[in-house]
């Protein structure tokens, strides 16, 4: 499917927001799902890149993604201009299980892990508590426009103390979370593994959106394998990207 870039703007150095329009009436995604996206730039880079859907702007037939420039693919994406088109395949993967809003819901984001959690917060009637952690100021404030727009109660944490609390998203989560809470998280694997350990210790239920390199995004290449707790391989694009923390073999990532 072709989508038109409505806006592609740098938020803070390396972090971009891209709004895509004319998504078509049958585009009906849910929080936690992602798209494979690619510009018309020939064969290098070759593969589309997986990016989570950050906002569903259904009324306008738009979606928004927020991304960080990591390498060649995201750099090319960042150079694209409003009015140009991109190829989109999606929505793909399994969404976050709908939160039981009678429980306290905590969202834990490691920097660029925030986008799918913003989508989840946007779908909830009661504001959850969002904890966003990163190395330094820019790694947490890039998403503050969305947070303000959706009026999400947020704790900012930075490792160098340049913005919000000093510490990490996980140390902050540990201070707030209780055994009956429901936790949703997305961020580096290291952070997710720590949350898995914490959940075992404290007993809270946790669902994480997991990242692995992808080629197809639709379950045909079998490239995005991750080891399930039961010893078999599951595939992030088809069986995930959202997993219950108890599903993953965190010791053998």
């Amino acid at each position, binding site marked *: 499917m072709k989508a038109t870039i409505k806006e592609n703007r740098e938020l803070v150095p390396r972090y971009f927001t891209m709004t895509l329009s004319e998504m078509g009436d049958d585009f009906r995604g849910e929080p936690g799902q992602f798209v494979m996206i*690619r510009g018309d730039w020939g*064969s*290098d*880079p*070759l*593969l*589309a890149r997986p990016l989570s859907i950050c906002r569903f702007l259904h009324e306008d037939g738009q979606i928004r993604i927020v991304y960080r420039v990591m390498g060649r693919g995201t750099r090319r994406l960042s150079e694209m201009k409003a009015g140009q088109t991109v*190829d989109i*395949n999606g929505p793909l993967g399994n969404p976050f299980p709908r939160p039981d809003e009678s429980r306290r819901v905590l969202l834990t984001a490691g920097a660029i892990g925030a986008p799918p959690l913003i989508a989840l917060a946007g779908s909830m009637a009661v504001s959850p508590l969002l904890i966003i952690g990163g190395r330094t100021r820019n790694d947490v404030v890039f998403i503050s426009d969305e947070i303000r727009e959706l009026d999400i109660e947020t704790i900012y944490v930075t490792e160098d103390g340049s913005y919000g609390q000093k510490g990490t998203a996980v140390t902050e989560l540990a201070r707030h979370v209780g055994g009956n809470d429901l936790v949703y998280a997305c961020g580096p694997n290291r952070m997710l593994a720590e949350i898995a350990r914490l959940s075992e210790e404290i007993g809270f239920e946790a669902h994480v959106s997991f990242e*692995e*390199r*992808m*080629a*197809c995004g*639709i*379950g*045909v*290449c*079998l*490239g*995005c*394998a*991750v*080891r399930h707790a039961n010893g*078999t*391989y599951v595939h992030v694009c088809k069986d995930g990207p959202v997993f219950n923390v108890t599903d993953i073999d965190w010791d*053998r990532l």
Partner: protein
Amino acid sequence: MKPDLSVEMFGLTFKNPVMGASGTVGYGIELAPYIDLGRIGAVVTKGISIEPRQGNAPPRLFETASGLLNSIGVQNIGAARFIAEVLPRLEKYDTRIIVNIYGESIQEYRQAAECFCGVEGVDALEVNLSCPNVDKGGLAFGTDPTLVQTVVREVKEASGKPIIAKLTPNVTDISPLARAARDGGADAVSLINTLMGMAVDIRSRGPFFGKVKAGLSGPAIKPVALRLVWEAARELDIPVIGVGGIMTGEDAVEFIMAGAGAVQVGTANFVDPAAMNAVVGGIETFMEENRIERLADIRGVIK
């Protein structure tokens, strides 16, 4: 007049020369939401072994300049489950079904082929000759003409199906291997499988893949694939199926001009799940624009 894209090979008619390459279309059914399977010539399943295989530990993918390195390790559900659970669903589509088989010894190839003996709905077997031979320290079967001939003869005898021998490009001269496949009774050969490559992680000062080596595919390998297809086609009187880096109808036409009877599309399916329909459309457009009535008029024009 509409150009005729149909192809005759080993007594079967294929509605066009475009097939989904093994390992890039799953078991075929996974692509049904994206393409009209009835508009492609054939689906080649991912490699199927007698017993299910878990595949390699991640990471399994690494993108290179216009290419892709993979180390999947032929993860599959095994022949029995494929026949019981997947084949009935795949058979509903109006396309030819070719099963790619994997073995690590002559015995394993034979047993895998036997599983498909008399199985209706399977039109042909494609034998992956890039498999490591455990009896020879993991050297690929496809590098030894005697082994190629033996494997092809065994699987043909065991299955009673037309056999496509899928050759490995990781050899110094393809000609003796192509001849060996023919002498073993192959009804066609397909090439190329992935080229062996590797990637280095300079931060950890180690190999990127657990198994160090990985298979390179995609547009980066197309010139090598074309050359090998041309060489094999000059050598053989059985059909040669061209594979390697085909992204468009024009790429496919290049292979046909180099002597290919049909083509397979692999990595392009990852970039665009509808790629094969576009390749069929591209061939058709090229033929119309150049007033080519049938593929035979351009096949092997490069002598």
